């Protein structure tokens, strides 16, 4: 047992932190947020060059990492800087699916930064259930509706889950298809997202795709990629929480009221210390989720559910307390914390919320 980062990961962390604090300033990000595409192709390329994407894949898959701790290191740094480029969905989530399905060509392109992807899986009534697929496919022809598809408009290839057999809610019978950009029968209603980036409602009307992996066996691919993505989401949120906590500490010691820094008022000081304690807890939860990503399924899932539940609670505490302790300034869009708080809060709406993971944890813990 040990808690030291390997030298390689330490280097990656340092490099990323330096690059992002130099280049991904609030002003840069606000311009990106206001842009039509909601992302910067330049930043994407530069980060890909720095190895952000390569770190998410194993050497076998063409990368140089791919373990839980690699994912955690990368996304914690992206989270710290409030990066809105869709590395989580476009690179990690979709890349993992393709890598496990053995599509090495596309994975290579992803690692090089030259391919944008989107996963069209969730549907208007599936909420956080991974197994509820009503979109159907006969042969290679897909019909259905997908909800809040992240990065859909920018994607060169969209991975679409469809039911090729079985009942809604069954794990068997879900097939993944690759649908190329501009494919006939795809319509999108795109919109920006609260925490940055864009997504779309996607309607599939007799759309042709090509099968990824084995027919009817898509669930296993989704589940495994989803586990990695949830670890990434937790790490990203942790990074954002660090920024929120640091901004708050700084503010409390700078801002004066009634003649003294407001951080010396005992009520705020004690609340700040509760917040810092939960930051330690969050760090541990992410460490565990990352560290057990390669463990057996039960150990992996127990720790992922625990982490996502804890991050939901700790994240809410940190973002709400950070705003409250700042006061009015935190309510303005131009202040750094506004974006960070939105990243933290909205992360509870991805890959299952606090309650969703609590229930899953209970089921596993009782088993």
């Amino acid at each position, binding site marked *: 047992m040990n808690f030291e980062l390997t030298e390689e990961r330490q280097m990656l962390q340092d490099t990323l932190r330096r690059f992002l604090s130099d280049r991904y300033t609030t002003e840069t990000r606000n311009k990106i947020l206001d842009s039509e595409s909601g992302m910067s192709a330049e930043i994407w390329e530069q980060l890909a060059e720095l190895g952000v994407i390569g770190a998410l894949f194993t050497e076998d898959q063409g990368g140089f990492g791919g373990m839980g701790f690699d994912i955690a290191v990368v996304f914690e740094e992206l989270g710290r800087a409030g990066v809105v480029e869709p590395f989580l969905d476009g690179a990690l989530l979709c890349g993992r699916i393709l890598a496990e399905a053995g599509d090495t060509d596309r994975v290579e392109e992803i690692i090089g930064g030259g391919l944008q992807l989107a996963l069209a899986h*969730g549907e*208007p*009534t*599936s*909420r*956080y*259930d991974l197994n*509820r697929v009503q979109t159907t496919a006969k042969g290679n022809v897909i019909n259905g509706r997908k*909800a*809040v598809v992240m990065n859909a408009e920018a994607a060169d290839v969209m991975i679409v889950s469809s039911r090729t057999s079985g009942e*809604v*809610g069954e794990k068997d019978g879900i097939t993944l298809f690759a649908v190329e950009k501009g494919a006939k029968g795809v319509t999108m*209603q795109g*919109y*920006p*997202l*609260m*925490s940055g980036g864009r*997504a779309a*409602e996607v309607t599939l009307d007799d759309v042709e795709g090509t099968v990824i992996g084995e027919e009817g066996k898509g669930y296993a691919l989704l589940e495994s990629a989803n586990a990695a993505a949830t670890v990434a989401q937790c790490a990203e949120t942790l990074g954002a929480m660090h920024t929120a906590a640091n901004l708050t500490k700084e503010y409390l010691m700078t*801002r004066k*009221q*009634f003649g003294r820094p407001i951080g010396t008022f005992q*009520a*705020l000081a004690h609340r700040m210390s509760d917040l810092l304690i939960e930051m330690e807890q969050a760090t541990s939860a992410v460490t565990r989720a990352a560290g057990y990503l390669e463990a057996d399924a039960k150990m992996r899932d127990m720790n992922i559910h625990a982490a996502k539940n804890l991050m939901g609670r700790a994240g*809410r505490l940190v973002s*709400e307390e950070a*705003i*409250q302790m700042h*006061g*009015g300034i*935190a*309510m*303005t*869009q*131009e202040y750094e914390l*506004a974006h960070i*708080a*939105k990243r933290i*809060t*909205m992360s*509870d*709406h*991805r890959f299952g*919320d*606090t*309650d*969703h993971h*609590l*229930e899953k944890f209970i089921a596993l813990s009782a088993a």
Partner: protein
Amino acid sequence: MDLNYTDEELAFRDEVRAFFDEKLDKDLANKVRLGTGLSKDDMEGWHATLNAQGWLVPNWPAEFGGTEWNAVQRHIFDEESARYHAPRTVPFGFSMLAPVLHKFGSREQNDYWLPRMLDGTDWWCQGYSEPGAGSDLASLKTKAVREGDHYIVNGQKTWTTLGQHANMIFCLVRTDSTVKQQEGISFLLIDMDTPGVEVRPIILLDGTHEVNEVWFTDVKVPVENLVGEENKGWTYAKYLLTHERTNIAGVGYSQAGIATVKRIAKSEMSGGKPLMQNPHFAARVAQVEIDLMAMATTNLRIISRAADGAAPGIEASMLKVKGTIIRQEINDLARRAVGVYAMPFASEMVEGSNEPLPDPHDAGPLAAHYFNNRKLSIFGGSNEIQRGIIAKVSMGG
């Protein structure tokens, strides 16, 4: 004690309901229900409708247009108002400036300004907060220097809600810098069309333009616009802060909010069943519903003790704290309820739009409301300030 409405109270409620049934425009109510934002016209239109009914300013003295409703009647009106998704009246003139004028203004000031509020000639906003002052109101820096029959005002106000619509602002200004902080403050009415007044928007974290900065550069204000005595403004401001707090608990808004959460959770599916049947979500809803039931009664107990239907000092602070906690919790439940559909966001969603929202619940702006309503515990005397007041008064420390 009796928790039931008397026959008279029930009759009054029927009257209120008949009014809303007849006079409240359905589209307007729908905007309120969805929280998609009201235009200036929407708000002025509703003020005119209430004024025609004689119900625009229930808390004013009868001679100026008040209704002389008792505490229970006010409560009934507020409750029905929220239930029908009627817009809230803009409080700065009606509930904040007017009581100060009644109590401390001259007869002339009352006769001149009050009718203009009622008929919509003036839209008032409030100039209290300043950058860097926050809850420490007495440290304000905006200066007014007497020159002949005018004051010359220089300085800056911030967090001025709906200042972009206003033509008049009531301000706390410093008229004497040689005395203790709270002693050199005056209460001034300023025409915003005067040269030197500039309004700059502040965009809130949910993308809305709701508050503003107001800058004063050598603004000339006639001395007859001074309310009460020079350097006594702090007294008037405090009166306002501790007395005129009707509907501070926001019970009706919370009740409407819970109804929305339940409506969504009955159609949103989770694990193949309506979310409302999920025990963990149901428990969250039930807890806040139980708290709200109690707070509705706390509110009634408190305001029924006060002759004017407004909560007195420490009780107002209690209602403010608990009321905001409950409202914010409901906002949190609403964003949870819609699941992945909390994520889509465009500022049109909260600023009025005819575009269909992407989600199945018509609930696009719910996450935005969650963020926007973090303000409830910050503005208008933060919950920390309120807790300090409660502790100090109740322990006599």
